[in-house]
């Protein structure tokens, strides 16, 4: 079987993702069949090009979303406004990574989730602007990625960030390459199947890839998945 299309998932599963993603239409000709999920967020980001090359401390291979506190955690879990998240620039005191020379600025990030029928998986597209509307370059985006994630991406070239044309809008976006998605999603789906637990495929996938580029999935959304709403999660074809 194939992983169901993002947009053919049961309405309640999509609603969970929709809580903090607006459903953006494509050109509208075929309605919801070809939409995408979209979220914009303001992030206060440290552009840290100095330590893009060096790596301190943790050489561990742990999953990105647990290895190091992201520098862009949202303010608490209560009173969150999905449309506009302004985050602290934390001083990272976990000792795992050191931020050296850096400048901190507020940037506007736009995240889109599309579905790749070629790879039967969701793909995360994103772009960033300064508040004056200047697009960020690949170098600047790269330097906004947390150093630990950066090392991990550099070591697995198929997971790098590249600039690509948005297939519905025709504009340049940055993309996290979907090639390896099946690799890390398969165990998640298998365990859930074995334990007869429901899985919201989109939220699971997003919780792994999102934080790499500053898109966090607050824990409370995982509690919105309940047995009646499970996405039937068979392995990707």
């Amino acid at each position, binding site marked *: 079987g194939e992983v169901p299309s993002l947009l053919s998932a049961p309405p309640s599963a999509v609603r969970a993702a929709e809580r903090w993603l607006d459903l953006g239409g*494509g*050109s509208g000709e075929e309605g919801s069949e070809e939409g995408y999920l979209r979220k914009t967020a303001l992030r206060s980001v440290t552009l840290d090009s100095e330590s893009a090359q060096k790596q301190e401390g943790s050489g561990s291979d742990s999953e990105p979303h647990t290895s190091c506190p992201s520098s862009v955690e949202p303010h608490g879990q209560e009173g969150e406004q999905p449309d506009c998240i302004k985050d602290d620039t934390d001083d990272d005191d976990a000792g795992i990574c050191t931020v050296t020379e850096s400048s901190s600025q507020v940037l506007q990030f736009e995240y889109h989730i599309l579905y790749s*029928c*070629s790879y039967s998986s969701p793909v995360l597209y994103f772009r960033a602007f300064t508040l004056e509307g200047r697009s960020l*370059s690949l170098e600047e985006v790269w330097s906004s990625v947390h150093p630990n994630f950066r090392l991990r991406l550099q070591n697995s070239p198929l997971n790098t960030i*590249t600039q690509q044309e948005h297939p519905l809008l025709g504009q*340049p976006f940055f993309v996290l390459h979907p090639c390896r998605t099946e690799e890390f999603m398969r165990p998640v789906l298998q365990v859930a199947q074995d334990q007869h637990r429901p899985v919201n495929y989109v939220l699971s996938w997003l919780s792994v890839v999102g934080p790499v580029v500053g898109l966090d999935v607050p824990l409370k959304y995982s509690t919105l998945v309940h047995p009646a709403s499970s996405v039937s999660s068979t392995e990707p074809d």
Partner: protein
Amino acid sequence: MADDKDVLRDVWFGRIPTCFTLNQDEVTEREAEPYYLLLPRVSYLTLVTDKVKKHFLKVMRAEDVEEMWFEYEGTPLKWHYPIGVLFDLHASNNVLPWSITVHFKNFPDHDLLHCPSNSVIEAHFMSSIKEADALKHKSQVVNDMQKKDHKQLWMGLQNDKFDQFWAMNRKLMEYPTEDGGFRYIPFRIYQTMSDRPFIQKLFRPVSPEGSAHSLGDLLKEMYPDAITNDGEQKRYQVVIHGIEPLLETPLQWLSEHLSHPDNFLHICVIPLTHQPAG
């Protein structure tokens, strides 16, 4: 009757006579002459225009030069589309040579991808090949190739070496005989009538009953407006590599013979009213 292999050669060696003119707002030390070049249909603008850049840099100061980009009649040209696709889509019904304007300032980063080096072009090209193979063979053939085989595909394109390229590419064109074709056909349908850059969806070359799908079958499913019904006047041209294949042509054959080196069938739907006056 042309051999199928001749078709592969004709596709590979297709050329478009082009005239490059410097944007008149660029700051020059003296007048810039236009530069003429035959562009390969199957290649990419930024891969084949080093000479163009050198030519115009001769009359400009370094501080006035940023990333080079191209424009045709006000439309920024996407370097990551094959040259032939850009021509068929934007200029096919106009006179030759194709007149392209060259810019060195004000890069339109809301429209165009950056192209800082040839390795970006290579990455883009290889990514298309991989995606095409994901559709054709669940990535099995491309994943079985070694790194040097991938390199051979790219070098073949970069250096215009048909034999070197096809020595490797033929593997990507094979399929189990019992299947009758690839799993899905890698294609993109382009048009300029709406904002959407292209249509790309899953489509099998063979129907569940076992009959071969044609180009017409693909269009009926993906872009029905492009088909002229009986009694109607023809509104659109369906163009691949500058020609209009018969709609009865089997899609599997088109995919094997008229794909671009990136292994995609790039199909342009052009309105017939888009003709120059006179």
